[in-house]
């Protein structure tokens, strides 16, 4: 029983990270109707920025916030420079840009920082908090940070005029322009926010999986499974999906299929959801007249 509880709690911790990245995927999906395959590499790259800052002697939290900000800037630049020119291109064209971005970010990170695995610090103490021995302080802290990020995003999109305008721009660009919303900038802002959320996910997961240019490839797969499970167009669904996938992956990995086959859980989920309920648990079913 103790072992199970431990696995569930650890699953919630990684699940929170999947949830953040899944949310980033959903945000880009809302704006472009495509899945950004480079989301994980963007998170990896910003985590390296955090590593450089900390390595240069900056304390953790200033480095954390500076990294989130540079993630935001990176996202905005990517949208302005790479995505905007292919805005009207067909789906395959955009997907190729996403994959190109994935490969470039991965290689540039390897080129600058080498492929040697680095350890990444956790801001949380080594000893378990409050003597809870089922969950490490970092895991508990990661859950807390994730929930804080989700709450901030919820408040931003729900209660601020800018958040409302971003939702409107993603939904109905033409009507948005007619009320004076600068739709292009809203999309760039969406990329920036998604990249910033990804940066948080990267910094939270790096102490667990260690830092190397390929650290996000598996995590992106889990995040993708989470987003699909929740419904690719549902932010709330993506978050719940993230936690569900985290727990499922951990428990199945520990007791059923073994750690080596854990990634298969994500693939089975992806295929299963697409076969049984393509709209996911909380997604909307779209009917198109042809």
């Amino acid at each position, binding site marked *: 029983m103790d072992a199970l509880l431990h696995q569930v709690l650890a699953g919630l911790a990684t699940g929170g990270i999947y949830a953040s990245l899944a949310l980033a995927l959903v945000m880009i999906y809302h704006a472009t109707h495509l899945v950004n395959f480079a989301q994980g590499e963007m998170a990896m790259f910003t985590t390296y920025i955090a590593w450089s800052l900390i390595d240069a002697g900056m304390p953790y939290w200033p480095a954390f916030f500076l990294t989130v900000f540079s993630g935001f800037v990176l996202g905005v630049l990517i949208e302005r420079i790479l995505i905007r020119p292919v805005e009207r291109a067909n789906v395959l064209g955009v997907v190729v840009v996403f994959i190109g971005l994935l490969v470039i970010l991965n290689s540039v990170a390897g080129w600058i920082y080498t492929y040697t695995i680095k350890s990444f610090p956790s801001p949380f103490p080594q000893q378990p908090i409050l003597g809870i021995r089922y969950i490490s302080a970092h895991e508990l802290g990661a859950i807390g940070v994730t929930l804080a990020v989700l709450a901030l995003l919820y408040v931003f999109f729900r209660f601020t*005029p800018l958040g*409302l*305008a971003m939702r409107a721009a993603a939904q109905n660009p033409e*009507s948005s322009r007619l*009320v*004076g*919303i600068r739709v292009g900038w809203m999309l760039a802002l969406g990329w920036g926010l998604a990249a910033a959320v990804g940066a948080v996910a990267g910094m939270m997961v790096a102490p667990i999986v260690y830092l190397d240019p390929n650290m996000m490839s598996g995590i992106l797969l889990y995040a993708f499974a989470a987003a699909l499970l929740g419904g690719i167009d549902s932010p709330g669904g993506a978050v719940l999906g993230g936690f569900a996938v985290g727990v499922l992956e951990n428990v199945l990995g520990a007791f059923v299929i073994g750690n080596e086959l854990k990634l298969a859980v994500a693939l089975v989920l992806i295929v299963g959801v697409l076969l049984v309920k393509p709209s996911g648990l909380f997604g909307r079913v779209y009917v198109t007249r042809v």
Partner: protein
Amino acid sequence: MLLEVSGLHAAYGATRVIHGISFAMEEKAITALLGANGAGKTTTLRALCGMVKTEGEIRFGGERIDGRSTEDIARLGIAHVPDGRGTFLNLTTEENLRLGAYTRKDRAAVAADLERVYGYFPRLKERRAQQAGTLSGGEQQMLAVSRALMLAPRLMLLDEPSFGLAPVLVRELFEILRAINARERVALLLVEQNAAMALDLADRAYLIETGRMVLAGPADELKRDHGVRRAYLGY
């Protein structure tokens, strides 16, 4: 002059739709653009908002606006009630209205305008927290007019506001449009299939046929015109 259009051409890709039309509107005027399906009425409104490629000159309050972006034109005070109503389907009624006032910084005035709009359309107040996609066609039309009003525009472009509405609702809507024009000091440029209603409301009217202006004049003059009566009024 509030709006001056001269020698306006517009095209979708290689297909030219409007071939040099010119007209003008004064402050607080109500002008109707009439014509058959495909005459270029909707395209004219879209051209004014920078939603299609144009040639020719468009001046709004003396300032050239042709070639400027749709969002800039909206910020100058031209609100468009588009063809198909342009509802933000997944947002609530009130969020739709707040988006209409997105560019305005005067919060107190926006709050007052929201109440005033609810005064014109009490139905929308009842449904303020409801998802706009679940509103009926008539309610969405009211919402589109209200959203445009929330911009506090000097000119409102209305593309077929009567489309798909029951006759009693059309009459009600046109009464409200008249009241809005009088009280809010906003000029209306109206595109309509329902020529009789449009000519009753408007003080000036223009007739467009296949992208050319063929007739212009005071609305009651056009109403008496033999050709207009036979082709568009049906008596």
